[in-house]
């Protein structure tokens, strides 16, 4: 045999043997582990705290715990890939109706929920709607980012108004503020903030896209009243530019520029101003959901934690979820969020963080909170309607004057039929 070929062959055999040996060595000493995929919080300290909590849990149990953070939009392809390949992380963070999207791949955690309920009491209706599917708890309710209002207390005082309690109060104050040169604003473009703002306005007037049975109700007097009110608000209290707000940062910029006086926005504006412009931050305050003819409704983003049913570490994953809801752990986590995260369980509603003068307006917001798509079932159709910007598009068409009300409603009905709702 040729010498060169012989040397090459021997080297090849040695390499392959080393690879198999390494693999075998690994298999002989498996160590339990837990991997968590979490969405990045707006407040960086939140993420650091979760890492710390996970590390402590790992040390307590003698296991490796790894936490990976991703932006919300990046989560969709990542979670889809994990479900389709049936491999990936053990625990995953879920936003809004992602529970519905992935419900067939999520492990029921009824046993964990029972322990929490025994300890702390029942979860509110919004949590049940958000994560229970076919009678099973598919995820652990984690926190809500509320779409309360952020407003300039000083400007409201300047024009002789207190924080609005109702949508009508807002219109009256808004007229005065616009005349003063400090208008209010909510987005009407294709963005999550527009969804959250306009859904709660629509609900406040008794409107909606579909009812609890999936029957289309958008063609109603109540929805038309909501849209007409929004048009009044836009024309009398907002600057023309809000019609061009097409991303979630637009209303933040509006308020942080010092021009805007009110918008529906979590405390992120105040948090940002506190770092970059403390004197402006001092002028901001927050209030809860506004009352409309049909009641007081709030919106926001609901976050939960699920375990993949194909996770090889399901037992320890359940232990971690239960650990997160222990009082000292949850208290730490809420403190690190600086009030950005509303707890989903009423036991924690009175957490000390909400006694801050700027955050007292958020107390009780979770009771007004409704999940995406309300009153329709929180299923894939609601997700479709949410992601197609059905509500913002409907409002945009009429408020901008591009499409008459009846035509806009008819187009929306057709779109909802396409999505799978019924007449």
């Amino acid at each position, binding site marked *: 045999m*040729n010498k*060169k*070929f012989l040397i090459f062959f021997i080297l090849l055999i040695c390499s392959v043997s080393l690879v198999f040996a390494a693999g075998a060595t690994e298999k002989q000493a498996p160590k339990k582990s837990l991997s968590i995929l979490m969405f990045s919080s707006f407040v960086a300290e939140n993420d650091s705290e979760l890492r710390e909590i996970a590390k402590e849990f790992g040390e307590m149990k003698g296991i490796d715990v790894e936490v990976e953070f991703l932006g919300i939009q990046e989560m*969709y*392809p990542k979670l*889809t890939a994990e*479900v*389709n390949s049936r491999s990936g992380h053990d625990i995953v963070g879920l936003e809004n109706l992602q529970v519905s*999207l*992935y*419900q*067939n*791949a999520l492990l029921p955690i009824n046993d964990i929920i029972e322990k929490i309920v025994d300890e702390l009491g029942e979860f509110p209706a919004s949590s049940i709607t958000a994560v229970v599917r076919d009678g099973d708890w598919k995820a652990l309710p984690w926190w809500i980012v509320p779409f309360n209002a952020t407003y300039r207390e000083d400007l409201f005082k300047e024009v002789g108004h207190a924080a609005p309690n109702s949508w009508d109060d807002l219109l009256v104050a808004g007229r005065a503020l616009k005349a003063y040169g400090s208008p209010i604003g909510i987005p*009407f*473009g*294709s*963005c999550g903030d527009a969804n959250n703002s306009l859904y709660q306005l629509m609900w406040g007037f008794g409107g909606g896209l579909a009812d609890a049975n999936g029957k289309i109700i958008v063609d109603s007097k109540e929805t038309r009243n909501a849209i007409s009110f929004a048009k009044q608000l836009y024309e009398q209290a907002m600057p*023309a*530019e*809000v*019609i*061009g*707000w*097409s*991303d979630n940062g*637009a209303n933040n*910029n*509006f308020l942080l*520029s010092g*021009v805007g006086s009110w918008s529906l926005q979590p405390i992120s504006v105040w948090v940002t101003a506190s770092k970059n412009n403390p004197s402006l931050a001092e002028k901001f305050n927050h209030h809860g959901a506004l009352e409309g003819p049909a009641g007081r409704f709030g919106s926001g983003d609901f976050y939960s934690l699920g375990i993949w049913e194909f996770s090889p570490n399901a037992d320890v994953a359940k232990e971690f979820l239960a650990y997160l809801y222990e009082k000292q752990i949850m208290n730490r986590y809420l403190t690190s969020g600086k009030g950005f995260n509303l707890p989903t369980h009423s036991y924690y509603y009175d957490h000390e963080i909400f006694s801050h003068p700027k955050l007292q307006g958020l107390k009780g917001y979770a009771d007004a909170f409704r999940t995406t798509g309300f009153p329709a079932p929180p299923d*894939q159709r609601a*997700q*479709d309607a949410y*992601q*197609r*910007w059905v509500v*913002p*598009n409907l409002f*945009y*068409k009429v408020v*901008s004057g*591009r499409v008459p009300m009846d035509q806009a409603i008819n*187009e929306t009905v*057709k*779109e909802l039929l*396409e999505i799978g709702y019924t007449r």
Partner: protein
Amino acid sequence: MKFNNALSRVMTNQEKLAYKLIAPAILVLLLIVGYPFVMGIYLSMTDATIGTSSTFNGLANFIWLAQSRLFQTALENSLIFTLISVVIKFLLGLPLALLLNLNLKPKKLIRGIILLPWVIPTVLSATAWKWIYDPTYSVFNWLLLNAGLIDEKILWLGSPWMAKISVILVNIWKGTPFFAINIMAGLMTIPKELYEAAKTDGANSITCFYKITLPMLKPVLAFVILFSTVMTIGDFNIVYVISKGGPINSTHLLPTLAYQIGLITGNLGRGAATALFIFPVLLVVVYLQQRISKNKNDW
């Protein structure tokens, strides 16, 4: 000795050697491009959603899409977006290439600067453009207001047509260097003797351009237009970052719609069908490009 003889035989048969050398690259292409493509075709003919088993449903997804108003809007937007962008990129790229082909000083620096929009990652440049179009902080509006050219802010993304123009502008800004550099490369291959002979016969610059430059550039233009068409029709990042398809779906393109249907709403079958819908159109474009490239030049 035997090894050397074997090696020598392999090196002599160049055709067989060529196949052996490109085999690894083809294998990688089959894995990275071929497999997902075939899977996409399969998915597009099923009712696949995330986490559930799928069943074959033939062309049902394509029929549903064809009847969907949202899909029709996205298809129309994609065709308008591609047609306008590619035409303007060509109209800007060709004169830019002619300029770059001149002996300007400093030539390399100018060529490098021209290429910048093309090489900057699209998400990064789209984010910068989003700031440029921002309703509150737009630098365009600031410049125009301060120059006294406008009295009110322009809502770059505030109306359907303005939003369309805005995203098309970004695509043109990004893609024109691709046209310019490739056409410039093509210009450099045209023998100078042709121009000298033409000038000797009394041809002016315009005649030289139509009778020599354009015909000689035909294969390069066909290649560049084809690639640009494929890349433009598949453009996702610009719209996703800047407008998310709004307002009222006026900037929704097939890739953004495929992403929304497939990954955000979880309907993998329809998402795949959306992505593949334009494939037959692109096949026609490729065929036309091949026809144009094969035409021989008589000179």
